């Protein structure tokens, strides 16, 4: 039983760190640092998966943790950096909402999600905390997509949301059936690849990846 306690302490720490990493993404003005923050976040997620696996003794969670590490912490960041290199985008991320407003909004979102989950009586203790964290990741991810102009950042936003979901899934239900998880990973990977292709196309046709310019289809 004490593994669970230990697990829970570790978990709380990790989840807190994940939130911090999310705020790093919100706070940074450089693509590279965003990608780096995302890498860290994914790494922390892998750890969460590992811890949960350890504390519950569900060993397929180790596989999931490994996959996460491989895919989200290594491959996807690499893809990002590849894209950035290839199409030589300016390093700055173009913003709609400034850095400090973004951080404040992020904070508000965290509070909202916290209250939302609180209002569900059935979820208590650690899982409630984790769930609110994942909620806030999801909403912050969406906020990133809204507030950043570069196509790449929107891609990143989606991945943040994905991570939020992953966190939710792991901490709530100790992971979904393996088959499903693998399917999800597969989808994410394909998704990222296709988005990459699209970004290249956008860059080719519009000579920019600033989604602000994608406004030809109206009405």
């Amino acid at each position: 039983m004490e593994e669970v306690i230990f697990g829970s302490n570790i978990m709380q720490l990790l989840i807190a760190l994940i939130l911090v990493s999310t705020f790093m993404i919100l706070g940074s003005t450089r693509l590279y640092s965003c990608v780096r923050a995302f890498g860290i976040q994914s790494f922390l997620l892998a750890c969460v998966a590992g811890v949960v696996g350890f504390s519950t003794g569900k060993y397929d969670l180790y596989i999931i943790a490994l996959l996460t590490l491989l895919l989200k912490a290594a491959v996807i960041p690499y893809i990002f950096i590849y894209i950035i290199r290839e199409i030589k985008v300016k390093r700055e991320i173009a913003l709609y909402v400034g850095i400090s407003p973004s951080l404040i909004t992020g904070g508000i979102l965290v509070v909202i999600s916290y209250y939302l989950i609180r209002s569900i009586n059935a979820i208590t203790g650690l899982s409630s905390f984790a769930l609110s964290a994942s909620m806030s990741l999801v909403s912050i991810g969406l906020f990133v997509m809204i507030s950043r102009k570069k196509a790449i950042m929107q891609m990143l936003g989606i991945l943040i949301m994905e991570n939020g979901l992953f966190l939710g899934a792991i901490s709530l239900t100790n992971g979904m059936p393996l088959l499903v998880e693998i399917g999800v990973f597969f989808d994410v990977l394909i998704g990222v690849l296709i988005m990459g292709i699209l970004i290249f196309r956008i860059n080719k046709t519009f000579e920019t990846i600033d989604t602000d310019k994608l406004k030809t289809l109206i009405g």
Partner: protein
Amino acid sequence: MYNILFPGIIFCFLIGAVFSILFNRNDRLANHISLLSASIASILGIIFSLSVVFGDSFSLSISGSSYLKFGFFVDRLSAFFILIISIAVFAVSIYSIGYIREYYGKKNIGYLGFLYNIFILSMILVVSANNAIMFLIVWELMSVVSYFLVIFEHEKAETRKAGFIYILMTHIGTGFILLSFLIMAGASGSYSFESFSAYGSTMPPFLKDITFLFTLIGFGTKAGIVPLHIWLPYAHPAAPGNVSALMSGVMIKTAIYMMIRVFFGFLGGGVIWWGFLVLAIGVISALLGIMYAVIESDIKRMLAFSSIENIGIILIGLGASLIFYASGNPGLSALAAIAAFYHLLNHSVFKGLLFMGAGSIIYSTHTKNIEQLGGLIKKMPVVSVLFLIGVLSISALPPFSGFVSEWLTLQALLMSFGSSDSFTRIVLPVSAAALALTGALAAFCFLKTFGMGFLALPRSEHAEHAKDPNMPMLLGMGIFALLSILLGILPVYVLPFIGMIASTFTGASVIDQPFSYGVFGTITLPANRIYLSTPVLFSIILILILITTGLYLGSRRKNKLYETWGCGQPVSTARNEYTATAFSKPVQIWFRNIYRPIRELHAAYTVSPLIKESFKFELKIEQTFERYLYSPMVDLILRISRQIKMIQTGSIHAYLSYIFGTLVILMMFIILGGS
């Protein structure tokens, strides 16, 4: 016997439709097939309807599937309308044999034949449907097919506009009908008309009133009551002549049929203010319809407006019937209903005749504008005589058919002295006065049309080279001309038959049948020796005419031909003739508050502002309701739409934030709901 006849009718129309589309390579063949089968079907229809009227009612149900059930039910009421439709179709089909030649080589005749047959079939199904869903289906089928007929000459922009207004209005109408059916279905728990008539009258009064209003609006749109009539003056002129004869003569009557079904059959008569409302609408439609007809110089538009007028007259009868029915007097209710029905029958005959006449004028002069006609009485003598008969009937001049039905309507209104309600006794005579005004204006209008169109000298090239059209067209018109004379002179042979139909829904028993019939084809009303004997009137007039003519020809005095008197100036040229616009000018001035004419005076000045080069005076009269009711509504809707259309900015960030917003709102919803 029935079970063969009714499917036989449907079958004939389908044959006509299918084969004419199959043979659309060969215009002649396609045309003849479609019209032949249509006329055979119409003969069958006449036999069928008569056998229903004198026999018992016919019903047939096809369980389309476990969900959709189709049923037909033909009682005397439906049979009467099937009869009207069939008669009209017979005459019009014969007419069309000649008329369609106009389109040979120009248009796809097979397609036209297809639409023509399906159109008539749908009308017959409408009056024999026995189930709300099926009714809606055939009703919309009728509207859609007639829409395609309206835009048959869709190369013209105004035709397309007409078609669009038509189908839009009729769709709105259908919306109301649908709602009323849903209400009744809710009350009766089924969509079959039997259950409607079983439970409809047991609905709470409020629901009954709503249903009444919705049906009135819904079917009124099709019937062309003011202010829902706006489509009519566009659509009827746009259609080919033979089709407009059917649309104006018959199609709009199907709406009246359903009104009667709903008001009497389903809702069981209802309360007295329904009657007053219908009466008021009738009066307004009659007056405004004819007012616009008077100043119209496009002959087909004029006829369309006069259709609105006549629907108004029919509704006056119907309204009186409702009033009497609600005040518990089935006999008078039957009388009023008979008046309405007789006018309905007459109108379908003479309006058909007039539309065909207009069709033949256009056929041989290629213009619809009576300002450009004139002198046709010498160029197309036969048509002019037939047209004159139509004109005399529609102007309600004795002893023609229009007179009899108007006389009946007036008598029905007069019968209000039997009523105990003083309001009724004031309102009905006043509406009688309005009816009289309508009649007088109708006479004015058609006098103008005939005088300008057929008399004096041709006003343009078109009219110069006109000549009587081919035989089938004359034949088709001839049938109707003969009918409208007979309906005028021998109403006594028709009225008992209509009386039977009226008694089916007014419940007027044999005792309080409104008529007895004396010698010399005299119609006798129960009250204090009110007689009318058109045969006698006719024969007196005829005898006197013969005597006078005898004296006239007998006299040795001869006629010297000389040119028309014009204050000594040689003026007998077309330019000096009185124009249609000038002719209707007094009326236009009289009712200028209703027409609200738009006058524009353009003067081109020379160098000095005092000396004018030329004057251009323009006077156009728009539809009051379009200008003050419909256009503002449409503008409003479009303006709002433009505002809403802004949300599709094209920016993906905006789109994502919509989703975000929705999410946040729903979360708030949960949080507040949860705590």
